[in-house]
């Protein structure tokens, strides 16, 4: 009996230490990976763009940038967000920073820009996304310095798999919009928090 209790006690101590180790992993381990990647992306971001090739034939649709490469910069002054957005939303891409849903529009293009970001760990990129309210400003910048300002129109919570949110706010008719997604409630991945915004600057011509 005493031996069994001793073994049980040791198992519980091991489980407790394992849990504490997991907290360290989430808070410091994952964030270190993201910080390192963001530092490298910031250097890539500052590098001048290569000159555009001269147009000789019919314009073809450009292939999307390689996954994990810098495609935009997102700034949300209200919650102190300022990150380089990478292409793709795979685990590897999201480990570097917020990820652009491949297939959605890029900032300034017609359509809805879709961006996902971690909320727990991984530098807590979108940790405070739930504080955004209607009218708040989100700025997206493309390489070369072109800035696009979006105004939050609505927020909602949906079940995972509801891809229709990537079409933008259903109550808005804006042709250039933005959808941000992250997990909710905090520290779980049960549902998705959605923030919709419409481009207000530059205005649609």
């Amino acid at each position, binding site marked *: 009996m005493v031996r069994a209790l001793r073994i049980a006690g040791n198992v519980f101590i091991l489980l407790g230490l394992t849990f504490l*180790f997991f907290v360290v*992993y*989430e808070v410091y381990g994952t964030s270190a990976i993201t910080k390192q990647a963001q530092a490298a992306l910031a250097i890539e971001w500052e590098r001048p763009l290569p000159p555009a090739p001269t147009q000789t034939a019919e314009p073809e649709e450009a292939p999307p940038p390689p996954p994990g490469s810098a495609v935009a910069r997102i700034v949300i002054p209200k919650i102190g967000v300022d990150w380089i957005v990478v292409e793709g939303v795979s*685990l590897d891409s999201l480990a570097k920073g917020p990820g652009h849903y491949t297939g959605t529009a890029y900032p300034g293009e017609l359509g809805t820009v879709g961006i996902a970001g971690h909320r727990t760990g991984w530098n807590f990129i979108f940790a405070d996304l739930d504080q955004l309210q209607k009218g708040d400003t989100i700025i997206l910048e493309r390489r070369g310095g072109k800035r696009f300002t979006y105004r939050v129109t609505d927020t909602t919570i949906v079940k995972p798999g509801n891809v229709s949110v990537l079409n933008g706010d259903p109550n808005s008719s804006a042709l250039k919009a933005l959808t941000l997604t992250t997990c909710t409630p905090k520290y779980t991945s049960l549902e998705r928090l959605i923030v919709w915004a419409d481009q207000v600057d530059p205005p649609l011509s």
Partner: protein
Amino acid sequence: MSKPKARYRAGIPPHTASAGRPRHRWRRLLILAVAIVIYAALLWYYVFPYVDQHFVNQPTI
């Protein structure tokens, strides 16, 4: 005569080498340290990422 009894009669304290040094303590510590490192590495590279992806972080639709 059994070995522990002989050691007792010879005045050698239990769990020590004949010279009175702790017996194989370094080996036990080394095994424990290696086990801890392997356990921590398995958690860090396999278990935690799995838990993170499936239960904590899944921001995509």
